[in-house]
């Protein structure tokens, strides 16, 4: 039990750091998306010069925003579910059902990990984006178009983080099943960001 609790606390600590970084990158991505779309409107109407990269850049950021912050929502119970049955069951049965559901969710995520890794490193990811460039010419290098794999990696990273959170949920359920009184770590940021 002590080893299990230690493993759980260790994973919680790792997730605390990773998800905190994810949330901060995600909010900056959302703010940047807003600025890019406003820039697009101003350029089109004021200067009659619509940029060709803005929509794709904003989509790029939206995908990364989702991949990086959705695991926090999952950790804080933000994923929509009907939990009436689980709440009606006795504690032990509810925990066993919750474990089965978590294992099912983990299966979905592991299959997703395998597929998204193949997509990022395979044929689909070998193409370049339509209008996004890395302007290395500004620093004396050679510019190149952003590979699609950089965009698709948002799903891969998102799934990896979701798997970490899912394993944390599994460990929490197992610990509570064995010892309902076991002291469990609390995510202090829950209240600050409010994922209710």
């Amino acid at each position: 039990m002590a080893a299990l609790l230690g493993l759980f606390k260790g994973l919680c600590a790792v997730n605390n750091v990773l998800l905190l970084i994810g949330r901060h990158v995600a909010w900056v991505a959302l703010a940047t998306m807003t600025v890019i779309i406003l820039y697009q409107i101003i350029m089109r109407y004021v200067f009659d010069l619509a940029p060709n990269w803005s929509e794709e850049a904003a989509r790029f950021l939206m995908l990364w925003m989702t991949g990086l912050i959705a695991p926090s929502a999952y950790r804080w119970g933000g994923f929509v579910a009907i939990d009436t049955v689980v709440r009606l069951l006795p504690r032990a049965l509810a925990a066993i059902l919750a474990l089965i559901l978590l294992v099912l969710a983990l299966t979905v995520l592991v299959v997703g990990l395998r597929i998204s890794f193949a997509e990022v490193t395979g044929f689909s990811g070998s193409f370049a984006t339509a209008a996004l460039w890395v302007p290395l010419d500004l620093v004396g290098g050679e510019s190149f178009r952003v590979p699609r794999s950089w965009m698709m990696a948002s799903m891969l990273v998102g799934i990896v983080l979701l798997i970490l959170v899912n394993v944390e949920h599994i460990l929490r359920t197992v610990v509570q099943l064995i010892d309902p009184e076991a002291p469990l770590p609390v995510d202090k940021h829950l209240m600050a960001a409010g994922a209710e």
Partner: protein
Amino acid sequence: MLVWFLPLFLLFLMIGLPVFFGLLAAPGLLIWWEAISNGNDRYMRDITLLYRNLYNGMDSFPLMAIPFFMLAGEMMNRGGITMRLVEFSQAMIGHLKGGLAQVNIFSSMLFAGLSGSAVADTSALGSMLIPAMEKQGYTRKFAAAITAASSVIGPIIPPSGIMIIYAYVMGESVAALFLAGIVPGILVGVGLMMMVSYQARVQDFPPATKRATWAESGQASLKAFFPLMTPVIILGGILGGVMTPTEASAVAAAYALVVSLVILKSMQIKDLPNVFIRSALAASVVLLLVGAAMSFKTVVSLSRAPETLAVFILGLSDDPLMLLFLINLLLFVVGMFLDAGPAIIILGPILGPIFLDLGVHPVHFAIIMSVNLTVGLATPPMGLVLFVASSVSGERVETIARAILPFLAVEVLVIFLITYVPAISMTVPRLLGFVQ
């Protein structure tokens, strides 16, 4: 075999699997099982398609309106703008029978033009109006019930998150849906006001405040001017062809930022990261759901489930009016257990094609679904806004659920009016040329 994905999905849902995982697990498991049964080892190709559609479903410019509208709503909510809307409503209609209850409903109608979220409405208006109503002599359960009931106007009057989702999943015009939601939203508000007025006559409601003077009304209007301009900017931009809905949503977010930060000074720069994080959190869940819905939609069409369901539904009756009645019942029951967004994502691709074949206009059907499922947010046992109203007021959910019944009756009546009088939703988009 694949036709079983729907019952399997419902089973997963009922036992508590999050909708996002259920949308992928049910078809994925059946694809795998069918392949194994037939000795076909190429099932990974189909499952890869499922995940590819999840990614492609999220990689969408129109869908970007969702995080932007959520951001605008969050800023309006945080920026003390709610108080200005309530003061404006108080000055306009505070003297009517049922004073503060009427103000509550009217504020929800105004708030709907800013946020499009029933939860944000209940939380923002409830925390301000429920204590004020109690102080004036209303019971707490009544105050919480009218707050929850009126908050469902939020996603009906544009801008509306669920209408953006419906438009994207079903390939409809966002502008047409926004326009079609205006009159039904006002109708729900007016219906609730009439019910409050009736209750004020037959029950012993606290007296209304005296009518505001012209000077007081003018001052309240001036203070609410900037927030009230938000829907004008959004709808004006979209309908005038100046901006796409996504661009309009980004402008709304920037406008809300300027109003809260610079003009009203009701928010500080240090509040911004939290506001952005909350918006991104909520948006990410919706975006994942929409992505999964696009995978689900592919399987829905491959499985021929709509055709099977259509045969069943058409077997019940060949009268479209009766079928619409039955479908409203179904949607109402679904709305009791599931939030409006996920319900639209799941049921839209299944029910939409059946009713289009029966001659129901797609925009009309979208409004029937949206309004019905939105009202479901305030119905027990799983109505989300009931829980929010309970947490804001401190009143028990069961007590609020009983007190809300007269208002739900009004909303059900409005649902049937919208269903059987298509002109209620179709006239405005038709007049403005957004619907043929």
